[in-house]
């Protein structure tokens, strides 16, 4: 399993495998409601004009470029969940981390993910690490996590 991190892949070229044309760059991610898996990559544009590449259309998340499968269509955002992610209302990076018992335990500084599956393997905060099993939800206010000593290490 190869992994990479959100901070590290920021701005990486996204290239269509068939035409060899650059179709954008990694601007951000649309994650599932729990923050456990990447659903899509925000590759271009802002707001209503933003385009995203569904994770299923990623052929290879390479060290220097993200290769999109042949004929992959960039889609425009079509639901509130994607809109919130693209606008930066719901983002993993910088998110406040809140335990299920109502304590703030820092903010997310980076996210490590499996480049094959898009599954989050670890969340890095300014106070420690969070395992994916602890993740409960990602919303506009906070990343809610199950309490564990790992997330409260100073």
């Amino acid at each position, binding site marked *: 399993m190869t992994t990479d991190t959100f901070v590290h892949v920021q701005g990486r070229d996204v290239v269509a495998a068939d035409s060899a044309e650059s179709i954008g760059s990694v601007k951000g991610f649309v994650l599932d409601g729990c923050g456990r898996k990447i659903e899509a990559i925000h590759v271009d544009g802002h707001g209503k004009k933003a385009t995203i590449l569904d994770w299923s259309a990623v052929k290879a998340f390479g060290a220097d470029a993200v290769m999109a499968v042949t004929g992959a269509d960039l889609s425009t955002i079509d639901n509130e969940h994607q809109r919130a992610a693209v606008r930066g209302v719901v983002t993993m990076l910088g998110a406040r981390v809140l335990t299920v018992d109502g304590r703030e335990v820092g903010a997310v500084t980076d996210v490590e993910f499996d480049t094959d599956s898009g599954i989050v393997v670890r969340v890095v905060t300014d106070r420690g690490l969070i395992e994916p099993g602890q993740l409960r*939800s990602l919303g506009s206010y906070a990343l809610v996590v199950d309490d564990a000593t790992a997330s409260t290490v100073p």
Partner: protein
Amino acid sequence: MNLMRARDLMGLPVVSIASGEDVAEVRDVVYDGEAHRLVGFTLNKRGMFAGRLKAVLTAGSVAAIGPDAVMIDTESAIDDSDGQASGLGDLGAARQVIGNRVLSADGSNLGEVVAVILSTGSEPRAVGYELQPPDRSNTSFVPISAQIALSGENLVVPAEATAFVRNDLAGFGAAVASYRSPELEKNQ
């Protein structure tokens, strides 16, 4: 035992564990003056100048109360029916607690109530009052008991409770535990 001043809950966000959204914030903290149980919260909308929310949050619908947020399982934990069944609907008879004069059982003025102390956790209760003496010196804490009486003007503290008065909140937690246990054993 984790203790918090009721005042510190005001303005805390109410966050859904299922969605990570802040659905409201705490406006009034309401507790039962006789049973000392926390009844629940009235709510404001989120945002500096946003108005009042009609929905209320009963203590039973709270998943956890922490120092930084009141957690609920899902957004449906907030009761839109205006709290008629929960005792939060009509707060016309509810009394302000802060500012009540504190009297000992023998009639001397011990000061005024400056805070209500709650125990957090799965079954939050009101466990004590913070008092400011008439001479404005350091505040002290007195545990709530069945004998303590609160009218909305006066809080009358029984003689036996004064033995458990503490000057620090940390020591008060232990004092509440030792003060409550004999009473609880009697009930069982």
